[in-house]
Structures are given as structure tokens and as C-alpha cells.
């Protein structure tokens, strides 16, 4: 039995440590909605993090990320590991809504498995800024492997680099020649490459092309970490024909071992922490400084001047910066700094 943290923890924190699905689910909603009480809960849970390994999955829409995760879940469950899946899907910039459809490809239920669909909610990067907090919660809940599926387009492919210990890139046959591989930039983020739908023609060529590239461009370092000697594997997978799945599990686990043996997991955790800290700071900056600053006469009059072309935006920017760096700046801000928020009352259990 895992250490559930003793009687000093709150009831909620203990329930999460014990893996109670309902409390975990509500906790994630709380984080997504920015509920204030979540900060206390995460403070309690944070010391219990560090056991999970985060595996990111990225690749073009339709490449088969969800299907690959589905098959991989089954492989992992055979080893008795506890698995969580965060399936991120895009939500509309206009309405804020969306159909989160990854889960439909993962029709599997098990006591050791938790799947959660995640709306990107229009935030930069596709991975919402609550991603780091949700990962901490799942980590503290005792999940040993956390699969994060990205929306598969744009910035999220780069952002997953910060959150995942290892990144799996899902490619397909006939995605183009070696020049496409070069310009797509996917070589920079992948630790494990797979050619999914390998029952289709062109799979061998695509795998050979990728292998050549990984050897040519095998990096001596990744985001400043020395990982000399590691060449990402290229694995042919077919989720339809059930080909290559044990090999994929091995590829991922070997990469994790490699990182562990070379003391690089600590580096990836550090990377995640820095990302989280900068997100947190941006949020504080946005709410406590920028929002009230916009209500000051200085901001308003400068905006007016720039609109009327009496002043250029760059000079105005510098004047604003001068005001910010003044010693008494914070005291000049209007006091009412909280923005109206829905669901501000704490949810009671």
C-alpha cells in the first residue's frame, strides 16, 4: 500500500493520494477553472510528486496518436502500471466550445487507468497553462506513466517538450521526402519516432528516411542537456494490424532508462518547473500588474496619444516601462485588482 500521506493532509488530498477517481476528476476541473482553493490542494500534494514519467505524443491530425495510445495502454497495463492519459483537443477561439473526440479511440476501462479529455481552451501553445498543475496532481495520485496527447498542430508540438520526459512523434507513410522531414522540424523534438499505419505502402521508405535523418542529426545535446550517444529509434507500427506495439513500449522505456542512467530526468523535471514558474509569473503579472495598470490615467492618455498618431507606440512603450521601474510603481496602481470570475464560490463536496 502506498503512503497516503498521514493524517496531516486534508481529506481531499488524502482521497487523491488514494486514487479516488471522483476527487481527481473534480480536482482537474478545479485547476482548469482556476479555482482558488486548488492552490492549497496542490501545495499539499506537491511533495508527493516525482514518481510519474510523462510521455508526450505528437504528430499531424489523423496520424493515429489516439489509436497508438490506446494500443500502448493495453501493453502497459499488462505490466501492472498505473496509467493516466491527458488527451488535449482544440476548442474554438470564437465560442470556447469544442467536441473532445480523442477518447472515442480509447475504448478501454481498467482500475489502473484514468483518461481525461482536455480542452485547449484557446490558450497559447495548445497545451493549456493548467497542464503543469494537472500533471502534478496526477503524479501525486500515483500514476506511474502519464500520456499526454497534443492537438497535433502548431505550437503545442514544441510545448510538449517542456512537459514530457520523452516525446513520441507519430508519422505516417507518404508524408513527403527527406526535405519535408527536414523542414517540418519534428526531428528536433522526437525521442522516439514511429511510422504508424505501416501496413500501407511507403512505410519502409518513410522509416528508412527517418532513420537516416535521426543518424545524420542525432544531437549531442537537447535543450542544453548532454545526451550524446542517444539515437532516437524509428519503429514501424500498425494499430490496425497490431504490429510493433511491444517494440514501441520498449523504445519508450529504453529512452526513459537512458535519461535516468544519465541523470537527465532531473533536467527534464527542472525544465518543466521553469516552464510552470514562468506561466505562474505571467498570470500574476497579468492579474496584479497589467490589468490594473491599464486602468491608470498614464496608460489611458498614452493609448489615446498613440491612437491619434501624436505619439509612436515605441516611445509610449518606453514611457510605460519608465513608470513601471519607478520605485513607488505598485502603490500607484488602482486597488480594485480582481477581475470578475465565474464559479468563485468554492465547490463543496
Amino acid at each position, binding site marked *: 500500500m502506498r503512503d497516503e500521506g498521514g493524517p496531516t493532509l486534508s481529506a481531499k488530498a488524502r482521497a487523491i493520494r488514494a486514487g479516488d477517481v471522483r476527487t481527481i476528476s473534480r480536482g482537474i476541473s478545479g485547476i*482548469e477553472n482556476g479555482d482558488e482553493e486548488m492552490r492549497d490542494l496542490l501545495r499539499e500534494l506537491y511533495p508527493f510528486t516525482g514518481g510519474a514519467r510523462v510521455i508526450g505524443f505528437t504528430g499531424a491530425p489523423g496520424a493515429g496518436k489516439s489509436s497508438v495510445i490506446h494500443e500502448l495502454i493495453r501493453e502497459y497495463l499488462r505490466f501492472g502500471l498505473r496509467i493516466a492519459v491527458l488527451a488535449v483537443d482544440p476548442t474554438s477561439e470564437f465560442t470556447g466550445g469544442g467536441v473532445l473526440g480523442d477518447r472515442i479511440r480509447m475504448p478501454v476501462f481498467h482500475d489502473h487507468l484514468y*483518461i481525461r479529455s482536455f480542452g485547449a481552451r484557446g490558450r497559447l501553445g495548445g497545451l493549456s497553462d493548467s497542464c503543469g498543475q494537472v500533471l502534478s496532481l496526477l503524479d501525486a495520485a500515483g500514476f506511474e506513466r502519464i500520456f499526454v496527447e497534443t492537438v497535433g498542430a502548431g505550437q503545442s508540438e514544441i510545448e510538449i517538450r517542456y512537459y514530457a520526459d520523452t516525446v513520441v512523434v507519430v508519422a505516417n507513410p507518404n508524408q513527403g521526402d527527406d526535405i519535408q522531414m527536414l523542414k517540418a522540424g519534428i526531428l528536433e523534438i522526437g525521442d522516439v519516432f514511429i511510422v504508424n499505419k505501416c501496413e500501407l505502402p511507403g512505410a519502409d521508405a518513410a522509416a528508412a528516411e527517418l532513420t537516416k535523418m535521426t543518424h545524420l542529426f542525432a544531437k549531442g545535446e537537447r535543450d542544453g542537456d548532454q545526451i550524446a550517444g542517444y539515437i532516437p529509434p524509428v519503429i514501424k507500427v500498425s494499430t490496425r494490424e497490431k504490429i510493433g506495439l511491444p517494440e514501441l513500449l520498449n523504445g519508450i522505456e529504453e529512452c526513459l532508462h537512458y535519461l535516468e542512467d544519465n541523470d537527465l530526468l532531473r533536467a527534464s523535471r527542472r525544465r518543466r518547473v521553469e516552464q510552470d514558474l514562468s506561466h505562474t509569473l505571467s498570470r500574476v503579472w497579468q492579474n496584479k500588474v497589467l490589468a490594473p495598470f491599464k486602468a491608470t490615467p498614464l496608460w489611458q492618455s498614452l493609448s489615446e496619444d498613440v491612437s491619434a498618431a501624436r505619439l509612436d507606440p515605441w516611445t509610449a512603450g518606453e514611457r510605460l516601462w519608465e513608470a513601471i521601474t519607478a520605485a513607488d510603481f505598485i502603490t500607484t496602481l488602482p486597488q480594485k485588482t480582481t477581475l470578475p470570475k465565474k464559479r468563485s464560490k468554492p465547490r463543496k463536496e
Partner: protein
Amino acid sequence: MSGGKIRVLIAKVGLDGHDVGAKVVARGLADAGMEVIYTGLRQTPQTVVKIAVQEDVDIIGISLLSGSHMVFIPEVIRLLKENKADDIGVFCGGVIPVEDITELKKIGVKDVFLTGSNMKDVAARAREIYAERQELRHAR
């Protein structure tokens, strides 16, 4: 920072192979600003409730065209109670005889939308159910 967002699970249960209606409702609710998760075809009441709990949805919308609504819907509601998740609101739609509507509402179904229902009404009702649920949670 985002406020609370309404999360809805659209579910198909039993041997019922047509889901155009379910998909239209899923899309309609998404267009109304909600996050919608769709179970896919031929689920059991057990899997529907498991997904609802894992996803922390506010509402489950069940679509039925097979005539088995008086079997599956009471079972979903019973399982929600068993899992202490009966604060999740349930509505249903599809091919349902009008004489069954009273009985369905009696066992706790919030609303029944027959073919030809207006998407705006469904979205408005979903918002009401969500508001009721928020109150219920605060009261507990």
C-alpha cells in the same frame, strides 16, 4: 483566466447503430460554448457512468433510437446514484414515445428532446441544468 465551462457527455447506449443525431447535438452544444465528449456507439450504462466520472461532466445527454430507453436510462441513473454521482444531470433524446416522457422524468431525467427539437432549446436547457447542479454542489 477562464471561468467554469460546461462539460457534457453525449452517450449512445445499447445496440443502436445510428448516431447522426448524437453528433448534431454534440456539435450544437460545442457551438454553444460547451466542451462535449462523445462516447461513440454501443456503450453500456457502466461505461457511460465511468466516462462521466472520469471526465467530471456536468450533464449526460443520452441518444436512443432503438426503443430500449426504458431499460438503459433507469440503469444509468441507478449507477450514477451508486457512484455518488447523481448530481450529474441527465437528459435524453431521439425516438421516444410521448407516453414514456412522464415516467422518464419521474425517475430523474431532466428533459426529453424528441426529433425536430430546436438546438437552441437544448443548449438553453443544458445551461439551466448546469446552473441547478452548481447550486446543488454549493448546498452540499
